[in-house]
């Protein structure tokens, strides 16, 4: 791992303006708190978390689609957070995004050729036949026939639209593609085909993915490393094997044990600790670890101060009481 990371995020913070009070200023709501990540070239980093955990906000902030309150995003050695105007627009060609909803992410009144070719026009000045030839190549790459470029989005199914969105993201041969719940809106069958497509493209183009999803099985399948988010904090980062077989953070374990296994014998024989309680209120966040209120291991220290990240058994975890995972540990009930 001596290679230079292609994308590095350090101490990313995002706040939204809070609800205005009658008197006085609105307290900002902190949606993302001190998130640091790095991705190697050609690597897939999975980012998992439940709704409201801030994972999509991280994506939008590192894309500079919303302005981060603090932190640095370095893309291929270039500080994205310092760029403005046309310099920022130029830098965007190296990081692209695939969105969740294949219906609203494609302009309904634009031809496929215009949607996929927009980046080519903006960044490379390609026009007319030249552009269309490139677009046709890109469509072939994602498994669509090249002659589809004269069509409108409404003529395609959800899975095909997502392929178009992927073609758009790949148009400029970016180093990083952020997939924000890119397969969540699709049927399982279509979902698996799109995942297969993304995997094939990674091998072909050596592109790195930041793969954001709430679906652990999907993340397990596609990722090299996994980062787990909870309530705006990163709580654990490790290789896919570490996270899924030896989770160190109690939340990661709870999350894994909540996913039902499609096998009644194993699912019903599983020892699962169902999390009680709910995620804290974002307007009045707790002082310490946000998971403390639902955590069986929580002590006074947990409610006092958010724990720092530390290395634990190969992964990196923000917890005062990381789980010990000897192979005999019954902590993780996946394998009965």
């Amino acid at each position, binding site marked *: 791992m001596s290679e230079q990371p292609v994308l590095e995020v350090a101490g990313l913070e995002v706040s939204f303006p809070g609800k205005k009070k009658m008197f006085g200023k609105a307290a900002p709501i902190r949606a993302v708190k001190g998130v640091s990540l790095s991705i190697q070239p050609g690597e897939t980093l999975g980012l998992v978390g439940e709704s409201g955990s801030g994972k999509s906000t991280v994506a939008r902030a590192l894309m500079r689609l919303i302005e981060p309150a603090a932190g640095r995003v370095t893309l291929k050695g270039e500080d994205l957070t310092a760029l403005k105007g046309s310099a920022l627009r130029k830098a965007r060609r190296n990081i692209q995004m695939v969105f969740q909803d294949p219906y609203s992410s494609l302009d309904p009144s634009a031809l496929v050729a215009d949607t996929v070719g927009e980046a080519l026009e903006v960044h490379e000045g390609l026009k007319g036949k030249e552009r269309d030839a490139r677009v046709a190549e890109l469509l072939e790459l994602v498994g669509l026939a090249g002659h589809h470029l004269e069509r409108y989005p409404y003529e395609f199914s959800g899975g095909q639209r997502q392929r178009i969105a992927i073609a758009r993201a790949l148009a400029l041969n970016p180093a990083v593609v952020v997939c924000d719940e890119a397969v969540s809106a699709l049927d399982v069958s279509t979902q698996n085909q799109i995942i297969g497509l993304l995997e094939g493209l990674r091998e072909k183009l050596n592109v790195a993915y930041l793969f954001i999803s709430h679906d652990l099985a999907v993340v397990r399948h596609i990722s090299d490393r996994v980062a787990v988010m909870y309530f705006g904090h990163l709580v654990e980062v490790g290789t896919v094997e570490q996270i899924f077989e030896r989770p160190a953070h109690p939340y990661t374990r709870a999350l894994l044990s909540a996913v*039902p296994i*499609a096998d*009644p014998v194993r699912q019903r024989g599983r020892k*699962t600790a169902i999390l009680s309680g709910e995620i804290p209120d974002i307007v009045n966040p707790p002082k310490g670890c946000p998971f403390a209120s639902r955590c069986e291991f929580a002590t006074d220290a947990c409610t006092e101060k958010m724990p720092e990240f530390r290395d634990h058994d190969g992964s990196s975890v923000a917890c005062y009481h990381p789980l010990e995972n000897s192979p005999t540990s019954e902590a993780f009930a996946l394998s009965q």
Partner: protein
Amino acid sequence: MNVDNGAVLLQTSEPTQQPVKPLVSVKDLSVEFVTDHGWQRVINNVSLEIAPGKILGVVGESGSGKSVTSLAMMRLLPKQGSRIAGGSIEIDGEDIQSLDDKALSQMRGNRMAMIFQEPMTSLNPAYTIGEQIAETVRRHKRVSSKEAWKRAVESLDDVGIPNAAGRARRYPHEFSGGMRQRAMIAMAISCKPRVLIADEPTTALDVTIQAQILQLLRSMCEDLGLAMMFITHNMGVVADTCDDVAVMYAGEIVERAGIYEIFAQPKHPYTEGLLRAVPKLQGRSELASIPGTTPAPWDMPPGCRFQPRCPYAVPECAESPLPLRQIADRSSRCLRVGELDLKASK
């Protein structure tokens, strides 16, 4: 059409036990919708039974007709543009189709209740949670409004909402997604129904919340002796929660069996495909899927409806429509059921 006699009460645990009279008994139900292509059959000869205390899982891809079946059972299909074209629905001893509007409304929410997929939109934003539950109680039980409110709070308490008395005075938008679905369940059980239909009740929820809701539904079913129909597309959820499974494809039931049997050895290629398509949490294997899409009602292939997508199809599959055939205590709608050795995982 098909001879469909596969409706046998499924009792997987103790086959020696005397059959209990089912609370839900649907026979040869067919539903038609009006489309650009005229009246089209979207549900074809669906039969199912559910005994008290049992949960029947109904699975299939989107467009397979799961939800339409459930809405037909509650008679909630739109009055214009849809019709029940055949078959019978019996719930808690009542022939649902023969009921007039008034008798039907006395059944709904009282002896049969339903919960929906979207807890965000299924509660009226203009009334408090307590008002909405108490309204159900007032409609069906002869109680004072004070008593109804008390029962509403009790229901909320039963589904595990902390500080139920206070929360009852809150509006839906002040609840989180999981809490709203609990409130929906509280509303559904507030009149102690005999039958509960849950249409994808956890699809919109996070996994940790889903686990809570599934546990709650299971215990409700046991405690109240409910017959529950559980619609989902998630095979993991089925494995976790249901006693029996009916697999639907293109408006028909293609396979029906007990939970352990169907996961151990599917008897229909479509079931196998569904099971194979589930991404695994452990290990890493190449992903599988069922290519193609569910056919539209006006575009049904000849013979077996799954045959164009089926990797095991032989020319005979396209010849004539297949009946749901009984094999021991389960049934399947596959021509090659005898010769294929299907497996849930490789």
